[in-house]
């Protein structure tokens, strides 16, 4: 179950995990709003915030290496856009400000998503008024993500055992063909899921 990476830590037992989902979501949003709103000149705020996030992170029992790797994965994009900010009056300050703020916000969301099962997040979202149809679609998407990843892996492995050239053109064709196959299978599975949902009374 290598696709665990999506969900590996959301069910640990820690004080943070045990907090009610609505509390965690609301807190995360408030933290992010504050990060963006508070001017960078109040540096103390960001130091305190970083400290608090580190404490929460320690309490959450999520391995540091995991958090670090996630941050590392997402930073390059932020840095890429931030670099463009350098080319303007006061650019260096702006650069530092947005890099700090976005990193702390990233940290917050990583903590949120890894201490909360997605199903519960959806529950909170539906209670605050997100349309039922969107919740259904989000739930289905999340559920079948793992199924499709598995299916994609199987198709890729089958294909790899028949591919002998490392030719880049061939690889692109092979990948595109894989995507096509995956799409066709997804539409077929969607029909079967509809039948299963109808069989238990869905309208």
């Amino acid at each position: 179950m290598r696709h665990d990476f999506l969900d590996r830590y959301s069910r640990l037992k820690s004080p943070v995990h045990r907090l009610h989902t609505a509390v965690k979501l609301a807190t995360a949003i408030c933290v992010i709003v504050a990060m963006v709103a508070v001017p960078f000149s109040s540096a103390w705020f960001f130091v305190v915030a970083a400290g608090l996030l580190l404490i929460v992170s320690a309490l959450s029992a999520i391995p540091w290496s995991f958090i670090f790797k996630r941050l590392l994965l997402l930073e390059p994009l932020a840095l890429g856009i931030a670099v463009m900010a350098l080319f303007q009056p006061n650019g260096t300050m702006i650069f530092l400000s947005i890099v700090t703020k976005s990193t702390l916000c990233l940290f917050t969301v990583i903590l949120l998503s890894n201490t909360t099962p997605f199903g519960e997040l959806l529950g909170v979202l539906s209670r605050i008024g997100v349309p039922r149809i969107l919740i259904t679609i989000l739930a289905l998407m999340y559920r079948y993500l793992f199924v499709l990843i598995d299916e994609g892996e199987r198709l890729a492995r089958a294909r790899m055992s028949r591919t002998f050239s490392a030719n880049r053109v061939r690889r692109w064709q092979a990948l595109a063909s894989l995507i096509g196959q995956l799409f066709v299978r997804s539409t077929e599975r969607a029909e079967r899921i509809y039948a299963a949902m109808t069989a238990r009374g869905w309208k």
Partner: protein
Amino acid sequence: MEMTPAISVRNLKFCYPDGKEALRGVSFEIADKECVGLVGPNGSGKSTLLLHLNGILPESFPGVPAVSIYGKDLSRTTAPDIRRAVGLLFQDPDDQLFCPTVFEDVAFGPQQFGLSEEEIRKTVSYALEQTSLTGSEHRSPHHLSSGEKRRVCLAGVLACEPQVLALDEPTSNLDPRGKRQLITTLQSIPATKLIATHDLEMVVQLCSRTILLDRGTIVADGPTHILLGDEQLMLAHGLEKPHILRHLHPH
């Protein structure tokens, strides 16, 4: 005294949109609480037949109703009620397990039928008990093994409290222990059962009667040990006499 048959199928015909004939005039009756095996080679129409029992097929109903469940004719208007009475277990558990947690999935049926929260909780617990899954309420489907997924699907169907169970290849992809568990569970459920399967050993264990389907028509319909024990018949229709019966004295 005539009892209303649980399932009554009269001259059922079905063609797929591409013209392929899947069912060519199938007729049979199944009595209340009977357990019947439905066997046949690949492509014989077993799955298609099962999909007709709760109205998923056909997409538009013909004038003359071909299927009745406990005397009620299956039509567009009666389909929703009949779906409560007929529980269909699909071939691929992933197709049927579409909610984020075990509890939500098993609760899906009762929720659609409008039960109260309290009733839902009771029904779900009972269904999980029947399938030996108590305690798994909060697990996610992708963390379950093949056998566990099958049992959750069964629980989800049982939670609808159906009078008829139609199962499509329930033991496929199960290891021997999973199979044993499933067979034991099925034995303890009092509903009328129609089981489409390649697992002839299971049919011998569970079903007193077997229907042999090939290319959309019923070729044979009779007591399991006679039908499955007929070596020539089995071979003629792409099947094999099951090992369990090989040691029995031939009739």
